[in-house]
């Protein structure tokens, strides 16, 4: 089933709730920088704006399918069922974090929920996902691997090598290119030859003669349909596809890079902070995937305003609880650090 029209109200509402959960989770991570200064270390990257791509894609998933994004990874495990509190605790560096405080924001993991581990080095996890596809194929598990990565990552050699390998071996992988218009501070028009020529980035699929499609990533159901088709193709043994979801990251790339003891902070989006281009930001902000989907669901009667509000409130409570849980969770004991080096 890949047709959006065939989705039940229940499923649509579930999708909406997941989008709201991602957004609220990211808001709470962002607020940590001011509400609980000193808690956040390193580099945290938020997925607000990507909710349509993440949920649209993952809504096509079968229970055992694998999900392998890169360092901007908070949203996916939320959808897979990892408790928000354990994710938050990880980002806060606590003992109750999903990785016991060893991984942090860039390296969330919950393999039991089909979310192995992520990489912070650009495009490297695309190769890992390709290998997960190999496992599925060799062991005939019927799994599809959902591989997410950014527009910037398509400039890294490993992306191309992986797609070729998946294509020649017909691996069951869906490559979801999250084109959020920026790699850190660099607009895609400054670094991508397709974009410069006015062509879609999904055209890169032609280098491997596999399907490549570009969809509106602010429209969760468009993503759902395109990724659903690609997933079916993968499940049918026909190999990989590239789906480009075009949307906009609504927060800055990540917290500002500071040298201790200067505390970490979360800046404005680069469009505003670096380029002073408020118009660009405002335009995309008006296409907020959550606002759009809510309007649609309320508009067609799937959801009442009150029901939507109820979801939002429930999510707010869930995330508040997650923050409190994380704050209350102890830091790991220092000596723990020597564990987990080898299996």
């Amino acid at each position, binding site marked *: 089933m890949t047709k959006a029209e065939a989705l039940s109200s229940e499923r649509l509402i579930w999708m909406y709730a997941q989008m709201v959960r991602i957004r609220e989770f990211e808001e709470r991570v962002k607020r940590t920088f001011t509400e609980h200064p000193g808690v*956040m*270390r*390193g*580099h945290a990257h938020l997925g607000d704006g990507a909710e349509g791509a993440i949920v649209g894609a993952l809504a096509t998933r079968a229970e055992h399918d694998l999900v392998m994004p890169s360092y901007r990874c908070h949203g996916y495990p939320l959808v897979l069922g990892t408790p928000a509190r354990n994710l938050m605790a*990880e980002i806060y*560096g*606590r003992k109750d*974090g999903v*990785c016991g*405080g*060893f*991984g*942090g*924001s*860039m*390296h969330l993991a919950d393999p039991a929920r089909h979310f192995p581990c992520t*990489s*912070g*080095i*650009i*495009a*490297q996890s695309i190769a890992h996902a390709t290998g997960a596809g190999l496992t599925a194929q060799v062991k005939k598990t019927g799994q599809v691997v959902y591989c997410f990565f950014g527009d*910037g*990552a398509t*400039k*890294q*050699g*490993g992306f191309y090598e992986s797609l070729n390998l998946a294509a020649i071996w017909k691996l069951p992988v869906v490559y979801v290119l999250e084109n959020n218009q920026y*790699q*850190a*501070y*660099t607009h895609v028009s*400054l*670094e*991508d030859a397709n974009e410069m020529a006015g062509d879609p980035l999904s055209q890169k699929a032609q280098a491997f003669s596999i399907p490549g499609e570009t969809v509106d990533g602010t429209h969760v159901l468009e993503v759902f349909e395109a990724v659903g088709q690609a997933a079916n193709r993968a499940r049918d043994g026909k190999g990989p596809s590239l789906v480009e979801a075009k949307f906009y990251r609504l927060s800055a790339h990540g917290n500002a890079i*500071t*040298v*201790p003891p*200067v505390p970490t902070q979360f800046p404005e989006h680069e469009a505003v902070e*670096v*380029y002073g281009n408020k118009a660009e930001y405002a335009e995309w902000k008006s296409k907020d995937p959550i606002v759009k989907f809510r309007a649609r669901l309320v508009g067609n009667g799937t959801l009442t305003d009150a029901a939507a509000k109820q979801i939002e409130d429930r999510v707010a409570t869930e995330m508040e609880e997650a923050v409190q849980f994380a704050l209350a969770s102890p*830091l*790991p*004991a*220092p*000596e*723990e*650090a*020597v564990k987990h*080096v080898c299996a």
Partner: protein
Amino acid sequence: MAREMMFAEAMAAAIMEEMQRDPNVVFYGQNMAMTERDPFLKRFGKERVRITPISETAEIGAGVGAAMTGLRPIVELYMNEFMLVAFDQVINEAPRMRYMSGGQVKVPLVLKAGFGFAAGWAGQHSNCLYHTMMGIPGLKVAIPSTPADAKGLLTAAIRDENPVVYLHHYMLMLDKGNVPEGDFIVPLGVADIKRAGTDVTIVATAWMVKKSLAAAEELAKEGVSAEVVDPRTLAPLDVKTIVGSVKKTGRLVLVDQAPRQSSAAAVIAGEVAEHGFGYLKAPVRMVTALDTPIPYSEPLERYVLPDEEKIISAVKSVMAKQSVGV
């Protein structure tokens, strides 16, 4: 004439001055020079100052090719880990071309990267990878610990006719110090005694120099006079100055932020075991990171890294040995 500036400013000054001096110097990397306000872009224009895609193999490889054909590229790489996706270019292309061509070409290339960011960047962004670049014939590795060295070594690296990896420690970026203005070079291959002492030699680089100096102050209070030697370049390695110091003190502690067997400390200890053995009154001691990847959470991260206390206790342990017995 010197001026107080931050480490980061000192590096910028070196690049600025060298670009001014030599029109063949070009400067490029990811996420730099994005707007017209960028001082490099303003001064040197879009041809010589460029923003690159996330393509380290092409960035560094193009640097090698450009250097072979007449430019002097400085490639901004941000973190030493990001070189790994293009590591063939770093250790098997740039430093080999001159030799393989029988001395016909040269590769004046600077690969600039930060490292060691012990601030919660976790397993893949906080590493000290210099050991992978040591001992590669044809490749130089600079690793400053002060703003003055930052400028002097970077200037030397840009003027060098060979590939130089220039590694700056992220935890030092805001440190201030007096930096000579104008033409100022710290030659590659010359260690610096950051603190003179008589009882024990501490060899350390980058952030660890700072920690070692702090430890030395503490030790002084207890009557131990520590000499702190900063090699400043790991390739070429100034074994002579290090052995000279050991000759004077008879004791050696090596401090390194990397895990023990991937540290510069181990290599230096090896050199001293050969060239300074007769001067040693006690076994050398290495104070390094524990054998773990870098964990995210602060107490874990702190636990695995060397610190003042660990340095002090290592120095005390070598001071306790009065003879060669162990």
